[in-house]
């Protein structure tokens, strides 16, 4: 495979790339949160005086915010500090700025707070100990309720040959980007200016504006290089606080989280319990019931995005005549549920794949054949009534089966081989825009996203721009601009970048080439080429160096400019199937099938993944190196969720393993060789039919490992992660 041609490699290998944690401005102050000392309580008093008395220290508490608010509309539901009631441990009560990190810590320690404890709902077991054996009903702990139904569920269950019911549990996992959240804010005249490590500069701008009631035009967000996002940096976090402190002190303010606080305050995937029931007749699925209890921490009522979206992934890409799904988002005393890479989808895939494999086994059917026979085909209807678009999952599955057969034939005793499927839909966000600028030597793509690491910006967009203009890649430069100069884009998340910005580039390119054709007196689009270092345009009978086709103004402005935008059409689900709550339509249909060979230690239950293969329905691969890199990285992250990653909360709402020693992401030695194959031809929504690849690779992994583990030793583990102890229990070693 070819190595990704990455223009950012040089600065990153030289150590000169500036990340959020590296921003260093003379005179800057250091900020820190004043954390709530318990998970639930009523604030009786918050005494900031001693902290304020320390030299050089500024403290902002709830009472101080009003003087910073602007006249604009504010999001009243979201508050920067705990107001009256603390709802999760370490929730910010106030924020300090001091001349050094040490002094900031001392200022925090000088704050005294009196809190009257309230009962703590630490987890789902505390909230609903009998579930699924009991009802959730009208509990005040429910933040959202989703309910959808189709077909004659009761009849199908009654008339079934077999009904299989299982309960699954999945754990909380963190993004664990190696760089913690970090930003430096400054007030420059009337402008609230912040340099920050983020997946969404425009999202930060929008958030800050709505939190403070100030116009977006007075906020400038300048993205730094990002040391990993994985969903955790998709919206604002520290920036509003840093900006307020900058405003209050008149000094630049650095706000970076310590790594333990990354875990304690992180908004991420939280635990879930799922009840799966499947009615089978004549070897086919006739009906399914899915019930989900999802911990959403302190997500605000009405703001839960996870429940209605996850339910679809619990159904999976499988045909069912009748179904009923019901999900409850449950509030617990933890930070709010937040997006991870393919948020909660790997956990859902683990549940549905393991369950369907189990159903097949119980019916003495081949698990792979059973799933394959139910996979969606293009033109069919999804469970919420959308039409399935081009979908390469069956092709991926067939390739996976061929590999699985070969591996099984060679596998030594104690090893097992299994296949897991994953289904994903690219997010749209609001949309994205770019500006192209063609000068006599090169094409510049001005856009508002930093390369966060996936390659989607620097490799993917370069590849698209090269293809749509016909210019070689080394003639294309991606130019990042902050929110005051760059066109809008909603953010690098949801695997949407290549699709959204790629389409915008396509549109701009068409405009550019049409303009040039016109100037050459022809119709259609001009062809671009490079000769002796100069760009040439050709249309009709004429060909000219670009420099001759530009107006004097355009020469002055740096080249011929064209804008493009992409705001994906909204898609609809069949509302008649929805009884309650918000469900999310799919934008496209991206599939993957993975194969794992695992070895299980029969004495300890420890699972070791020996080798791995990933088959991905990629639409069109735009940059092979970046695509391969995404699959390799996503699989490794999925292995963590499969085997070792689990955020553990105590009964009093404390995150017990808030650190990289006890929250275990995979190390180099634990990732097996991964072979990667792309299936092309099933077009997605992106340029040339490309499908987003940022998230799909993580989705099938825990499922694949679980199914291979069962194949290896018979252990049917219905909980994530598949720790050695859980496997040992399933093997009845204990």
């Amino acid at each position, binding site marked *: 495979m070819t190595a990704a041609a990455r223009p950012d490699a040089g600065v990153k290998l030289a150590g000169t790339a500036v990340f959020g944690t590296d921003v260093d401005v003379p005179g800057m102050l250091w900020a820190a949160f004043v954390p709530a000392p318990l998970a639930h309580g009523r604030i009786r008093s918050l005494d900031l005086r001693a902290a304020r008395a320390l030299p050089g220290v500024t403290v902002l508490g709830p009472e101080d915010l009003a003087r910073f608010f602007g006249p604009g509309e504010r999001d009243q539901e979201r508050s920067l500090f705990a107001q009256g009631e603390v709802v999760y441990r370490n929730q910010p009560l106030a924020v300090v700025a001091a001349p050094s990190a040490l002094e900031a810590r001392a200022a925090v320690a000088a704050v005294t707070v009196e809190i009257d404890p309230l009962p703590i709902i630490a987890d789902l077991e505390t909230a609903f100990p009998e579930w699924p054996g009991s009802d959730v009903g009208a509990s005040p702990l429910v933040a959202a309720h989703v309910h959808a139904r189709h077909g004659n569920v009761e009849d199908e269950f009654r008339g079934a040959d077999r009904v299989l019911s299982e309960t699954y549990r999945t754990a909380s996992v963190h993004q664990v980007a190696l760089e913690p959240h970090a930003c430096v804010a400054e007030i420059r005249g009337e402008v609230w200016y912040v340099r920050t490590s983020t997946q969404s500069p425009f999202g930060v701008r929008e958030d800050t504006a709505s939190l403070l009631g100030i116009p977006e035009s007075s906020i400038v967000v300048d993205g730094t290089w990002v040391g990993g996002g994985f969903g955790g940096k998709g919206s604002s976090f520290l920036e509003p606080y840093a900006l307020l402190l900058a405003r209050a002190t008149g000094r630049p303010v650095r706000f970076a989280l310590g790594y333990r606080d990354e875990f304690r305050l992180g908004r991420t995937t939280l635990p879930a319990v799922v009840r799966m029931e499947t009615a089978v007749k004549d070897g086919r699925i006739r009906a399914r019931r899915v019930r989900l209890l999802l911990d959403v921490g302190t997500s605000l009522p009405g703001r839960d995005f996870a429940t209605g979206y996850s339910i679809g992934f619990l159904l999976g890409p499988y045909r069912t005549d009748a179904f009923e799904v019901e999900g409850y988002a449950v509030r617990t005393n933890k930070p709010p549920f937040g997006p991870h890479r393919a948020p909660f989808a790997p956990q859902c895939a683990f549940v549905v794949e393991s369950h369907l494999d189990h159903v097949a086994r119980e019916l003495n059917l081949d698990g792979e054949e059973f799933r394959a026979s139910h996979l969606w085909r293009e033109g069919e209807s999804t469970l919420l009534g959308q039409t399935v678009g081009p979908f390469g999952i069956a092709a991926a599955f067939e390739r996976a089966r061929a590999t699985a057969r070969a591996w099984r034939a060679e596998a030594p005793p104690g090893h097992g081989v299994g296949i897991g499927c994953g289904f994903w839909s690219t997010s749209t966000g609001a949309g994205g825009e770019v500006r192209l600028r063609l000068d006599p030597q090169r094409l510049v793509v001005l856009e508002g996203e930093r390369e966060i690491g996936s390659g989607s910006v620097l490799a993917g967009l370069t590849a698209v721009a090269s293809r749509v203009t016909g210019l070689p890649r080394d003639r294309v430069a991606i130019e990042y601009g902050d929110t005051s100069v760059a066109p809008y884009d909603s953010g690098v998340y949801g695997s949407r970048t290549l699709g959204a910005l790629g389409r915008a580039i396509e549109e701009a390119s068409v405009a550019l080439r049409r303009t040039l054709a016109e100037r050459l007196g022809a119709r259609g689009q001009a062809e671009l080429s490079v000769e002796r270092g100069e760009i040439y345009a050709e249309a009709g009978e004429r060909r000219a160096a670009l420099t001759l086709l530009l107006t004097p103004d355009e020469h002055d402005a740096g080249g011929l400019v064209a804008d493009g935008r992409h705001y994906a059409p909204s898609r609809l689900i069949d509302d008649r199937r929805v009884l309650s709550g918000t469900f999310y339509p799919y934008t496209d249909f991206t599939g993957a099938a993975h194969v794992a060979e695992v070895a299980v230690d029969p004495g*300890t239950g420890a699972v070791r993944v020996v080798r791995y293969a990933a088959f991905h329905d990629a639409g069109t691969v735009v940059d092979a190196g970046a695509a391969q890199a995404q699959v390799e990285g996503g699989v490794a992250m999925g292995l963590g969720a499969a085997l070792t990653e689990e955020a553990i909360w105590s009964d009093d709402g404390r995150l017990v393993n808030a650190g990289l020693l006890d929250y275990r992401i995979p190390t180099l030695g634990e990732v097996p060789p991964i072979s990667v194959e792309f299936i092309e031809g099933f077009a997605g929504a992106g340029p040339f039919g490309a499908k987003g690849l940022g998230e799909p690779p993580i989705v099938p992994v825990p499922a694949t490992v679980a199914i291979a583990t069962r194949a290896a030793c018979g252990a049917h583990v219905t909980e994530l992660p598949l*720790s050695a102890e859980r496997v040992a229990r399933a093997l009845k070693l204990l």
Partner: protein
Amino acid sequence: MSGFDLVVPETVEEAIAALQTLGPGEAAPLAGGTDLLLDVDEGRLAPRRIVSLRRLPWRTLDWNGNSLTVGSTLPLRSLEDDPQVRVKYPGLYEAVRNVGSVALRHRATVGGNLVRAAPASDLIPILLALDAEVDLVGPHGDRTVLVDRFVQASRRTDLRPGELVRSVRFPEPRPSDFRWQRVRPANDISQVVVAVAFSPAGRRWRVAVGGVSPRPTLLTEAADALGSGRPDADAIRRAAESASTRALFVTDRRASEEYRRRLVGTLLERTVASVVETKGFPA
């Protein structure tokens, strides 16, 4: 991170004095710092003074015939790199090379690990199995104590005020091995640690476990069950059973008591088998 005074004494006497002149817990010695500095950062310890041992002549590895004396501030990586250690004390080699990471082992020391007396210490069990001794220097002179007596409880040793570990001594090479179980193989704290050694001179087994109880422990009943030479399958099974019932077990976020019992038995069987089969075991 609290503030502290850093002192860098040139001699052992200066170091002892620097530790002694403040009250208990107010001064702490600094070897590699990989545990101490973390404890300070996270508020578990708050010494006013930290006494660096970097200038003391203890970064040593000395052979006296086959007996080995390791200076207390020798980085673990140096111990790992010594080819004779690998041959003569294979269990020690295995234990050392599995501590943390390479960069960590460039600073972490046997002395520091020993004095910290962590329940899941990867080194203390093999020190126990090898009947290692601790050489101490202090304001009231030198003394030598068996590691088994020196390590008393979780995070507590017999170290007296002003005392420092000068070296750890291993009296005789032994066929030995060390096994662990962790959530992930690299850069992790062990759930269970088993160290096994056979003394050719005394024709006696030593079995030590760590990670299961507040203090790494020698299991005499399990060792006795192994006999005075090459144990048969039955003896190994009895030893494993004894180990999984006799050792004191805890449940924590790394593993439950039940699982630890299971692990100890399984790991003990494997460790004994490996010592007998592959490590130059006497006939």
